[in-house]
């Protein structure tokens, strides 16, 4: 289906003091599942509610409470797996990850260590037109989110908000196929785009709906290729995991800092210690959170409160059949069907809503012209107004009308901008605007001829000059346009001016 072909991008090379280095990056993205209720309880998942108001007895781990799986969350995970062209495991199981923390009331997180619901898949990470990295997905499992501990409200007390406790997360684990900070950010961007297309995660990084743990190591050029041939990790450097990042910018900065830190260590003859690190955006540096030796022993074991999760192939097939068109396919189709450049197609398909808007504008119109209007005029205006496409004040069919008026020659591109502005601000119909405001282009050659004659008659000296230098005909066109209030069809004006001047 995918018609477009891509070359892989070159890996980022960082020059050390002694030699060049490459980066190897793998990611674990935690994506909050879009669902009304939590993974194992009926409590609401609504963001921003009063602290501890979305908490059931199960979430609070009251004695004797038991988890019951939310089928919709499972469906969302399956949908995500299908969207990443991944293997769906019809048999999966839940395990307990045991550790103590006040925002984890059960004292364990229910997760899927041994048998995840989704197996291997892939994501095509677009870097530039014709350039994309294929990143392999190792697995996706579903698990419970923790609550929030708040330590800075009181000098002696900590507070706990359990609203987020038990909300469903998908942990999407990639292979170490990402080769630079920009690729890492592009990977998260693409993953977020797919999740939003699928409707399985709102992708809101600010609210923490999407968080990334980044595994970074450095190696000498050539080492990665040896790893890819053998899948033997010993060809790669020791990795550090940078935890819990929720901004594309921080992800890039953290990777950049971490790579340089590791290079400096290795070039000084030291060894990178495998550990978990945190990125401090204020200082722009990563710092150690806990070493491998201090790593928790999570004592994973199968959760005896839950039976293995068994799903039917027919159910998976039904979800698959109802999948929306995904970004790669949509982009390829836009290029093919509308004759767009890959770049324009990328811009238009970044959000499913925008792509849908564009398709409505393009209906019955020239695709490229429609794309120009959506990308340049509409997106530009929305950005200026900090307005989302979903709250766009001008409906797609009205912008389509404007494009149609241009194509028909009823208005010029210049006038169209005025029409757009009025339609955008007032909510009026474009055709009505053109009619009421007398903006319709004058295509009546008699009227144009009269205007041209008038200008020629009034400017004999200019006529002489123009006859010497035909380029000056433009001046007459301008004068005619001015005289007609910009409504004259520029093409007709051009032709008549040239004829009358005898050019």
């Amino acid at each position: 289906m995918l018609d477009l072909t891509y070359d892989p991008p070159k890996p980022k090379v960082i020059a050390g003091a002694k030699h060049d280095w490459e980066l190897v990056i793998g990611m674990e993205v935690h994506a909050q599942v879009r669902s009304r209720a939590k993974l194992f309880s009926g409590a609401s998942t609504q963001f921003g509610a009063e602290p501890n108001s979305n908490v059931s007895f199960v979430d609070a781990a009251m004695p004797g409470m038991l988890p019951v799986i939310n089928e919709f969350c499972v469906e969302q995970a399956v949908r995500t797996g299908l969207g990443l062209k991944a293997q769906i495991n019809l048999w999966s199981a839940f395990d307990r990850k045991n550790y103590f923390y006040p925002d984890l009331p059960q004292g364990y997180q229910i997760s899927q260590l041994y048998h995840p619901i989704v197996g291997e898949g892939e994501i095509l990470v677009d870097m530039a037109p014709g350039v994309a990295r294929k990143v392999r997905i190792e697995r996706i499992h579903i698990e419970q989110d923790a609550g929030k501990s708040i330590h800075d409200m009181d000098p002696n007390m900590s507070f706990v908000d359990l609203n987020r406790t038990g909300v469903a997360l998908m942990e999407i684990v990639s292979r170490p196929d990402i080769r630079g900070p920009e690729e890492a950010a592009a990977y998260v961007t693409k993953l977020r785009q797919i999740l939003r297309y699928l409707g399985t995660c709102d992708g809101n990084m600010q609210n923490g709906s999407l968080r990334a743990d980044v595994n970074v190591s450095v190696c000498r050029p050539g080492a990665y290729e040896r790893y890819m041939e053998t899948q033997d990790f010993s060809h790669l450097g020791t990795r550090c995991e940078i935890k819990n990042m929720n901004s594309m910018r921080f992800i890039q900065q953290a990777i950049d800092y971490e790579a340089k830190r590791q290079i400096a260590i290795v070039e000084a003859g030291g060894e990178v210690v495998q550990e978990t690190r945190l990125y401090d955006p204020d200082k722009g540096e990563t710092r150690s959170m806990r070493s491998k030796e201090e790593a928790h022993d999570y004592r994973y074991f199968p959760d005896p409160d839950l039976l293995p999760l068994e799903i039917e192939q027919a159910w998976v097939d039904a979800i698959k059949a109802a999948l929306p068109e995904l970004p790669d396919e949509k982009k390829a189709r836009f290029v093919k069907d509308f004759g767009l450049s890959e770049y324009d197609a990328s811009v238009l398909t970044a959000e499913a809503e925008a792509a849908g808007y564009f398709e409505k504008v393009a209906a019955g119109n020239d695709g490229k012209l429609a794309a120009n209007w959506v990308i340049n005029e509409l997106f530009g205006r929305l950005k200026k107004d900090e307005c989302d496409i979903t709250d766009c004040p001008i409906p797609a069919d009205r912008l389509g009308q404007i494009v149609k008026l241009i194509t028909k020659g009823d208005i010029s591109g210049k006038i169209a901008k005025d029409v757009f502005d009025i339609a955008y601000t007032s909510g009026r119909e474009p055709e009505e605007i053109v009619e009421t405001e007398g903006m319709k282009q004058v295509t009546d050659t008699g009227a144009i001829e009269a205007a041209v004659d008038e200008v020629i008659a009034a400017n004999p000296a200019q006529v002489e000059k123009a006859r010497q230098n035909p380029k000056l005909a433009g001046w007459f066109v301008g004068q005619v346009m001015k005289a007609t209030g910009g409504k004259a069809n520029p093409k007709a004006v051009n032709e008549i001016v040239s004829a009358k001047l005898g050019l």
Partner: protein
Amino acid sequence: MTDLNAFTLADARDRLRAGDITSVELTEACLNALEGAGALNAFVHKTPEKALSQAKAADARIAEGDAPAMCGLPVGIKDLFCTMGVPSQAGSAILNGFRPEYESTVTQKLFDAGAVMLGKLNMDEFAMGSSNETSVYGKVVNPWRRADDTAELTPGGSSGGSAAAVAADLCLAATGTDTGGSIRQPAAFTGTVGIKPTYGRCSRWGIVAFASSLDQAGPMTKTVRDAAIMLEVMCGYDPKDSTSADIPVPDFEAMLTGDIRGKTIGIPREYRMEGMPEEIETLWSEGRRMLEEAGAKIVDISLPHTKYALPAYYVIAPAEASSNLARYDGVRYGHRATLAQGDGITEMYEKTRAEGFGPEVQRRVMVGTYVLSAGFYDAYYNRARKVRTLIKRDFDDVFAQGVDAILTPATPSAAFGLGEMNDADPVKMYLNDVFTVTVNLAGLPGITVPAGQDSQGLPLGLQLIGRPWEEGDLLNCAHALEAAAGFVAKPEKWW
């Protein structure tokens, strides 16, 4: 006429319906009995007001001719069940002051069937124990005593309060729970009947978890018929418990024909333990003879992995418990230690849990944490799970060969003295569960029936193990055994 509180469920039910007695009278008789039974320490929390209001409501329903299965019948509830608004502490200090805002599914079913709750019954802390000595409320004393001896005996555990209360006629019946024998062993020690149904029969929702894959609720009663009546009410699918089975619950009482002709009863050779007291051996042979005389076919069978059951159980149960008990951290409910200046969250956990959990619970949490830890998981937990699979297969095989039920001793001895095991290796205490844990590991139904008395007059029980989901058949076998054994002895009232 006997004291009302000495009635069986079946008798009381029939008399209530006949209008001979009222539930209020019955309930008052029980409340009086338990008022005078402080020495047994069976009830840890009494709910007389709730009981009387439920009894009045039951009388009204009976008068209207709308009497469900247990209408007006006073029962006791093991403290492991969460009961709305009533202290529910699982016998532990760590749940000090905890009053649930919800009702466990099983107790709700009992109330829906008209049962009257007299109060909460003592138990080993978090159901961990075989002698009822680990409760924060103190030990329970068995109403039975050895002939000419005033030494206090254990009622068994962990449902020791339930067993003692039923044996002493403080209530008509009680709920119990059984993770490794916690219904069946105390029933055997007190001359009562206790059944642990198939795993998945009773909802675990609202029952404080010990080991989730093994825990099951069940009734503790005076007769097999009573067990049938009460089990039927307690059973049933519950969508709130993912491990609860959506299988219809038959009319168990109607299946008590007493006719076991043509049934095949297996006698497992591996249950003949070294050093088993002769009295137990004799009782077992007697049971075999009784069932044979009732028309059953007796076959010798082999359950080859039996000897690995106890070690596997004492890996799996603590492993699950160590995780299940992690929630008792002092953050949201129950006990929280008073902290010193500068103490942080780690100190809060450590102090709270050190103060809140008794030594046996701490031991099992530590064992469970150890067997799940990195580097030991495969050697202990995973191996124990494999053993569990093999034990289950042993049973599957004999059932496939046509065995309907398996007869074994219930316990390796009669009730022992309280404090007798204080200095013993904990493993010696664990040996009490040797005949019962296999049933939990395999998820099967098991019932103990009083079948005789030892030389000192203490009750002894036999266990019957049934096919999964065939509690009706199992109860019928037990009914035949009960009839043949003719156990009618009662403890002499000394309390």
